[in-house]
C-alpha cells in the first residue's frame, strides 16, 4: 500500500506522521525551515508563496498555542486563514467529520490543518479530500504531532549540528504523548544512535522499545551523559485510571531539577513542547536556566510550519 502521505512522484502530499517518511524528505523540510528562520528575523516578515490559497485550521480539540503558530505561519506565507473550532459548531448537531470536510472543500479550501482527539482522524480526512487539497496533522490523539517532532528535531540540529553522535532522553508520559512518538520517529530516521525514554512503567506504552528506544525507569541512570533532555508535559486530562498517585510524587522521581540535569553532559540542552507545568515535570530553575532552549523551540516552530506548508503547496 502506497504511503498515503506521498503522491505518485514520491513527493509530500500530506503531512500526517513522520513515521515512514524518508530521511531526504525530513532533511528537506529542516533545510527549508532554516531559510524561513531568516524570513522571520528580517524586516519584511511576509513572503508571497501561498498568496491566494486558503488554509483552514480545523481544530476539533482546543489549542490556542498551536493554532496561533499555524495561523502566523500561514499569514507569513500570505495565505488566507480561516479558523474553525469544531467542537462548538456543527458536529454537535450530528454532522459527521467527513461531511464537515466536504462542506469546507466546497468553500475552496486548499489546505487543512487538523487537530483531533482521535488517533487517525487526519489520515481519514486525507484519504477523503480531493487531490489538490493538502492535510497537515496538528496533533491526533496519542498518535502524532508531526510539526512538533520536526521543530524539535530542528532545534536539536540547530544546537548540536550532527544527529549521528547524539544521546537524547525523553522524560515523562510517553504513553499518552503524540509529541514523543513523533520525535522518536524523527530522530531514528535522522540517525540518532542513542534514544532513551524515561518514566514509570505506567506511563510507557507496551513494546515501546520496538520504536527504537532504550527504556529507563531510573532517571539518574537514564540521564547520564545525554546531550539533549526533552521533558514532556504531564497530561492530567489524558490520564484514565490509576497511573500515578500524585504530581508531587512524580516530581520527586521524574521532575527535571538542576541536580538531575547535572548528570547529563555539561552542555546538554533542555527542551519542552509546552505548555510547562512548573514544579511537576520541570523545576523553574531549569526552565529559566541557561541550558533551556524552550523559547527557541517556539520561534523555530513558526519557521518549520512555514516550511511544511510551502513544500506541500509546491507539490501540487
Amino acid at each position, binding site marked *: 500500500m502506497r504511503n498515503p502521505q506521498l503522491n505518485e512522484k514520491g*513527493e509530500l502530499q500530506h503531512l500526517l506522521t513522520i513515521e515512514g517518511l524518508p530521511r531526504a524528505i525530513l532533511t528537506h523540510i529542516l533545510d527549508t525551515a*532554516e531559510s524561513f528562520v531568516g524570513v522571520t528575523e528580517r524586516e*519584511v516578515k511576509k*513572503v508571497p*508563496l501561498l498568496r491566494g490559497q486558503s488554509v483552514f485550521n480545523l481544530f476539533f480539540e482546543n489549542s490556542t498555542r498551536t493554532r496561533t503558530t499555524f495561523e502566523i505561519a500561514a499569514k507569513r506565507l500570505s495565505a488566507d486563514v480561516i479558523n474553525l473550532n469544531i467542537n462548538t459548531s456543527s458536529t454537535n448537531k450530528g454532522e459527521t467529520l467527513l461531511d464537515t470536510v466536504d462542506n469546507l472543500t466546497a468553500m475552496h479550501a486548499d489546505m487543512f490543518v487538523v487537530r483531533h482527539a482521535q488517533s487517525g482522524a487526519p489520515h481519514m480526512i486525507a484519504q477523503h479530500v480531493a487531490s489538490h487539497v493538502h492535510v497537515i496533522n496538528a496533533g491526533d490523539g496519542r498518535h502524532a504531532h508531526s510539526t512538533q517532532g520536526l521543530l524539535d528535531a530542528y532545534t536539536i540540529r540547530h544546537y548540536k549540528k550532527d544527529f549521528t553522535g547524539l544521546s537524547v532522553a525523553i522524560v515523562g508520559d510517553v504513553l499518552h504523548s503524540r509529541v514523543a512518538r513523533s520525535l522518536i520517529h524523527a530522530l531514528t530516521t535522522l540517525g540518532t544512535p542513542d534514544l532513551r525514554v524515561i518514566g514509570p512503567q505506567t506511563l510507557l506504552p507496551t513494546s515501546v522499545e520496538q520504536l527504537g528506544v532504550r527504556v529507563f525507569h531510573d532517571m539518574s541512570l537514564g540521564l547520564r551523559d545525554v546531550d539533549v533532555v526533552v521533558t514532556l508535559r504531564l497530561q492530567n486530562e489524558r490520564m484514565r485510571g490509576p497511573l500515578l498517585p500524585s504530581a508531587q510524587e512524580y516530581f520527586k522521581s521524574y521532575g527535571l531539577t538542576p541536580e538531575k540535569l547535572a548528570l547529563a553532559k555539561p552542555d546538554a540542552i533542555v527542551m519542552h513542547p509546552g505548555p510547562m507545568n512548573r514544579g511537576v515535570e520541570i523545576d523553574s530553575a531549569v526552565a529559566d536556566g541557561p541550558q533551556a532552549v524552550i523559547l527557541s523551540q517556539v520561534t523555530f516552530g513558526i519557521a518549520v510550519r512555514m516550511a511544511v506548508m510551502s513544500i506541500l503547496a509546491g507539490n501540487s
Partner: protein
Amino acid sequence: MNNSLPDAEALYAELLAQLRAGIKPDTGLVGIHTGGAWLAERLHADLGLDVPLGAVDISFYRDDFHQSGIKPDIKRSHIPFDVAGRHILLVDDVLYTGRTVRGALNELFDYGRPASVGLVVLADRGGRELPIEAQYVARRIAVPEGRMLVLDRDDAGRLSLRFDDESAS
C-alpha cells in the same frame, strides 16, 4: 572549456567603469543571489559606497513555485538600509527572461517604496519574456539553444563564465 566566451574579469572591469561614471553617492546596491551577490560585493568594495551592501534571494518570489516547488539552499535576504525614497541598483549576473528581476523587484517593494530602481548585469543573453531592460550591461552574449550561461567564482574570488545544460540548474 568554451573559448568563445569572454573573460568575466574583463567584463567586470568594463561594468565597473560604466558604473563609476553614472552612480549617485547615496545609491543602494542590492545583489541577487547567487551570482549577482558576488558581483555586488566586488562592486560595492571597488566603488567605495557608503550605503551598506544588500542582497536578496528571490526563491520565495519565483513565479514558477507551483510547478517547481521549494528549492533547498536558500540564502538569506538582507537589506540593511532604508529602501523608502532611495535610488537602488539591482545587480545580477545574467539577464535572460526577466522573471528573476521581476521577483527581485517584488521583494524589494515589500521593503518599501524606492525613488528609483535600475538594473546592472554582467551579461545580457536576450530572450526576454517580460518588458525589462538593464541600464548597465557589460556585454551581449548569444547562448546556444538548450544551454545556460553560468557565472562561477573560484576560491580566490576570480570570476569566469561557462555554458551549462539547461537541466543542470
